[in-house]
């Protein structure tokens, strides 16, 4: 009857969302009076999950699962859920978790709620709070099925340390032939740079920057802060920046600690997409830009003067604080 959690890793290292999912699972397990069992794939330091409240780790070491494979991973998790008698399964809101969760949902005839932002409101009936309408609202959603699957939003519930010692067992489930019918041919992942999905800070540029040749200062600001770079929809539509950087209602959502918008007016679709960020800063020469109503801090001024100055001040700050 344990709570099962899928703990994501990349090249053997657990991702931050694995610790967030484990922390959330521990909270649910406490509410239900049970313990947490994690499933890991080719991870190096399984016992470290104990820090976040995991009692038992089912370790899958299988070279054929070195690259994420949604169907195969879902088969493993379904088998683990049955072996553990788990009725609640916790995942993250990463691209991989959102790929895998619906497959698992159908396999277990479960109820699945993604984008969950807080510990369950109640566990009987089972009610969770999630974002809806692309961050323009929240829903209280009841899950009435026997098996319940929850996708936890990043940077919402957060991580909680619950230091217990985790036992580690090898888990070798049998996979169907069809598990490998969708084959990964090539993975092209940016290395050594923060990504919008898991960055603490995101620096974003809009049409106010006038052209792609002016992105140097956005990237430099991001470098100084260890931030990911992003952009508004018009900027990606005009091809100034890749689609993968488009944040907003039809692009990527952002749930960072700090979001800095440069030359972005703040269309309702953009503001929806970044609404889950905790602190928002806007730099814009138009004091009437709607973004000023959504921001915590703002500077009315020319981005081409303000941003280089901000980079200098941040470098001075870093020099004093490291």
């Amino acid at each position, binding site marked *: 009857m344990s709570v099962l959690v899928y703990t994501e890793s990349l090249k053997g290292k657990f991702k931050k969302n694995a610790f967030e999912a484990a922390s959330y699972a521990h909270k649910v397990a406490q509410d239900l009076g049970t313990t947490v069992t994690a499933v890991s794939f080719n991870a190096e330091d399984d016992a470290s999950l104990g820090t976040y409240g995991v009692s038992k780790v089912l370790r899958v070491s299988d070279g054929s699962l070195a690259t994420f494979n949604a169907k195969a991973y879902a088969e493993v998790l379904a088998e683990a859920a049955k072996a553990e008698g788990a009725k609640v399964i916790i995942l993250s809101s990463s691209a991989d978790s959102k790929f895998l969760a619906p497959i698992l*949902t159908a396999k277990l005839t479960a*109820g699945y709620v993604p984008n969950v932002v807080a510990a369950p409101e109640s566990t009987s009936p089972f009610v969770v709070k999630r974002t*809806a309408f*692309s961050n323009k*609202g929240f829903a209280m959603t009841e899950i009435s099925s026997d098996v319940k699957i929850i996708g936890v939003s990043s940077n919402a519930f957060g991580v909680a340390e619950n230091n217990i010692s985790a036992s580690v067992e090898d888990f070798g489930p049998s996979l169907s032939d069809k598990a490998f019918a*969708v084959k990964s041919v090539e993975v*092209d992942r940016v290395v050594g740079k923060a990504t919008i999905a898991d960055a603490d800070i995101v620096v974003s540029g809009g049409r106010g920057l006038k052209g792609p040749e002016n992105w140097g200062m956005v990237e430099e600001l991001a470098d100084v802060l260890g931030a990911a770079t992003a952009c508004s929809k018009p900027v990606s539509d005009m091809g100034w920046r890749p689609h993968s950087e488009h944040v907003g209602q039809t692009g990527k959502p952002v749930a960072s600690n700090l979001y800095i918008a440069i030359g972005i007016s703040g269309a309702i679709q953009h503001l929806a997409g970044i609404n889950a960020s905790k602190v928002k800063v806007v730099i814009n020469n138009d004091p009437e830009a709607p973004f000023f109503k959504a921001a915590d*801090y703002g500077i009315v001024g020319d981005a081409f003067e303000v941003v280089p100055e*901000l980079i200098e001040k941040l470098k001075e*700050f870093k020099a004093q604080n490291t």
Partner: protein
Amino acid sequence: MKILVCISNVPDTTSKINFTEGDTQFDTNGVQFVINPNDEFGLTRAMWFKEKQGATVHVVNVGGAQTEPTIRKALAIGADEAIRVNAEPKDGFFVAQQLAEVVKNGEYDLIIAGRESIDYNGGMVPGILATLLDMNFVNTCIGLEIDGDTATATREIDGGKEKISTSLPLVIGGQKGLVEESDLRIPNMRGIMMARKKALNVVEPVEAAQPTQDQKFEKPAAKGPVKLVDAGNVGELVELLHNEAKVI
């Protein structure tokens, strides 16, 4: 090749979101409804397969009669036929079960849905559908080529992309990248006229489970006023982010 494009009827992206009946219902008052943007990228890609590879394209929506203008728009863009499953789409699993029935009856090779609808953001319909039908599935799909029974897809991952090789029958959860924003089509008068003559078949729903239920909605808490920093004193912003907001 026979393609089924699944479309949701959603509030336009510029809509202000309000709730009614004690915050238990979405307030549709004054809201303009459109084809879900993620679905529209898929529909436009399907038009490409129709024009370049001779595919037949059907669209399907699970919804009440009020969604028919949105379905007609998909026909005006160029889909050949439409199906409406006459049921309110209360839950993703419920919708996927309805669509599975449509796919079984229509013998489709490729099913294109959006990665999520921009209203309830469940993001589960294509994956559940594929699994119920034991079809291959690629989510967050930003590129798709079909050659015979072979499919080559590109999937967006966190921090990059992944090239995928698979085969038909296939379900994809699509998004921008399948086609560009500039490829999207505005129906012309001829398309709108022709759409009126195309078949829009209404079918009744099958018995299906609904494992989740939205009980209540709320809007994000109102924000306090912005704290403005003078453009000549940028250092103050660094101070505030460090000492007050504690984010650097």
